[in-house]
């Protein structure tokens, strides 16, 4: 293990080759954005809604690929992301419809998650069966596949992430108020459903940006675990969001470096485990703050 330190160090300091550096940058940017958005998401008590949203992207990815295949277009990330967004919105709509029946919100989330995911797998296996000659590589979206990430992909994450952060900055006051006291926000004339929709749109943004890095199964961890960790350290929302972003960014950076140095380590799971480790370590360290 000792002999690996130089390689890990090289990756951490972006000297392990251009591709590894790109992945590090992309993963850190994703972690930052996910931590910030996740803070608002968890305070609004919608943590697992993101799980449904993430799983619901899969059929859209597959359909977008099939559509571009039918039109004779090459595989393009923006098109796949558009498909993912549309099917995630359909999933969100389905959750909200089902949550109004007597099965309740958690069952609605679980039902939509498994159904959309199942449909996605059906489409993925259909694509595999078509033997298009073109490498679909859509399985990478399940658990992330950083190896094939291009400069353009990282560009999408950085620019998209910046837009999401900008939106959060613009909306942070109403979002915080609604999360804290929905009733008061309503009385003050805030359109609560519209701000909730905006929050979900930002979460969807994070999910789309995370498809390649950690994949749709594990992206929910980047949204909730750093936020939960930050919550242990501070009682102030602004500090919490920044800290969660920092934790996510560091986990992304270190996780991507580790997997660059040790090629067998899959990036997404490593990043997720790092954030979880941060959460576990923080519990005893912050004990005094909660007493």
């Amino acid at each position: 293990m000792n002999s690996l330190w130089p390689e890990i160090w090289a990756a951490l300091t972006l000297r392990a080759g251009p591709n590894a550096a790109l992945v590090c940058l992309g993963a850190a940017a994703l972690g930052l954005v996910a931590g910030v958005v996740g803070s608002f998401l968890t305070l609004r008590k919608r943590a697992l809604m993101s799980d449904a949203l993430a799983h619901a992207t899969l059929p859209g990815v597959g359909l977008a690929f099939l559509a571009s295949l039918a039109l004779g277009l090459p595989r393009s990330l923006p098109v796949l992301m558009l498909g993912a967004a549309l099917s995630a919105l359909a999933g969100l709509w389905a959750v909200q419809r089902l949550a109004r029946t007597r099965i309740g919100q958690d069952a609605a989330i679980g039902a939509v998650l498994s159904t959309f995911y199942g449909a996605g797998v059906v489409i993925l296996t259909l694509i595999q069966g078509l033997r298009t000659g073109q490498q679909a590589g859509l399985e990478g979206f399940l658990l992330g596949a950083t190896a094939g990430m291009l400069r353009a992909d990282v560009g999408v994450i950085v620019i998209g992430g910046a837009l999401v952060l900008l939106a959060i900055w613009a909306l942070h006051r109403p979002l915080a108020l609604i999360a804290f006291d929905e009733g008061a926000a309503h009385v003050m004339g805030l359109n609560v459903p519209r701000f909730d929709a905006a929050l979900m749109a930002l979460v969807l943004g994070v999910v789309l940006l995370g498809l390649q890095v950690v994949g749709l199964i594990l992206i929910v961890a980047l949204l909730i675990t750093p936020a939960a960790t930050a919550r242990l350290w501070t009682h102030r929302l602004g500090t919490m969001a920044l800290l969660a972003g920092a934790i996510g960014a560091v986990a992304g950076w270190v996780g991507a470096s580790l997997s660059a140095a040790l090629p067998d380590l899959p990036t997404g799971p490593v990043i997720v485990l790092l954030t979880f480790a941060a959460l576990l370590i923080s519990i005893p360290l912050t004990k005094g703050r909660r007493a």
Partner: protein
Amino acid sequence: MSALDFLAFSAPPMLIALLAALACALPGNFLLLRRQALLGDAISHVVLPGIVLGFLLTGGASTPAMMAGAALAALAAAALIELLQRSARLDPGVAMGATFTAMFALGVLALELSGAGAVHLDVEHALYGNLESLIWFDATDWSALITPATLATLPPELFRMAATLALLAALCWLFWRPLVILTFDEGFARSLGLPVRLLSAGIVAAATLAAVAAFAAVGSILTIAMLICPPAAARLCTHRLGPQVALSLVFAAASALIGYVLGGYGPLWLGLPASVSAAGMIATTSGLILATAALWHKR
């Protein structure tokens, strides 16, 4: 395809899917009514590291070892969720989400690092299941159905799922009354002196058992879908618990059979070259049944 081909290639996986669907839907009813539906989602994720662990320790797909590992993983997850809720005062959803993603990540990591993937188990199997590969090679003749030696070569998953379903059905039948009372009114159950904690843990344990047995055979999607969708659809159709459970089993069976047939033959009927994931199709079918129930229910 001849009838004999059906016996060898389609009947065993269909039967396994059917048994798995029934075994998951049964405890799913109680999870749903106790507002613990997402526990099914969590369980089917956390068992992965346990199954991998059992696999690595024994060096092969030994069922008892994988079951023990999965049970261990489920216990560890329960302890972690409890710790995060109690010590860190996190919301139940956050505690659950953080735990199950971390444990699933651990399972994937262990799979990738161990090279277990090269042998029998890989991430794709964990996610999709390998329903289509559970075939009965030795069924070359109809006499196979009455020859003990040939019957013994049926996929072991078939026996495992049948045993699991039988056990769960027996437990559900035996403990029906206390389960109903506990699920409806925990305070009353306690004042009757019922072992509330034990029964609650029993429901989770039953769901875990179903999930573990099903996971190895049919993958995580089908497990989650069957734990949640058929009971939810049945919930929308009736105001009585007995009929709800019965109806959920009917929906689960219908999902399994229709889904399997659609997955195996649907693409052929459309003129496409290959079949698609049966597990995925079964999950989709159960979702469509739920959607139909929700539209019909309208409230």
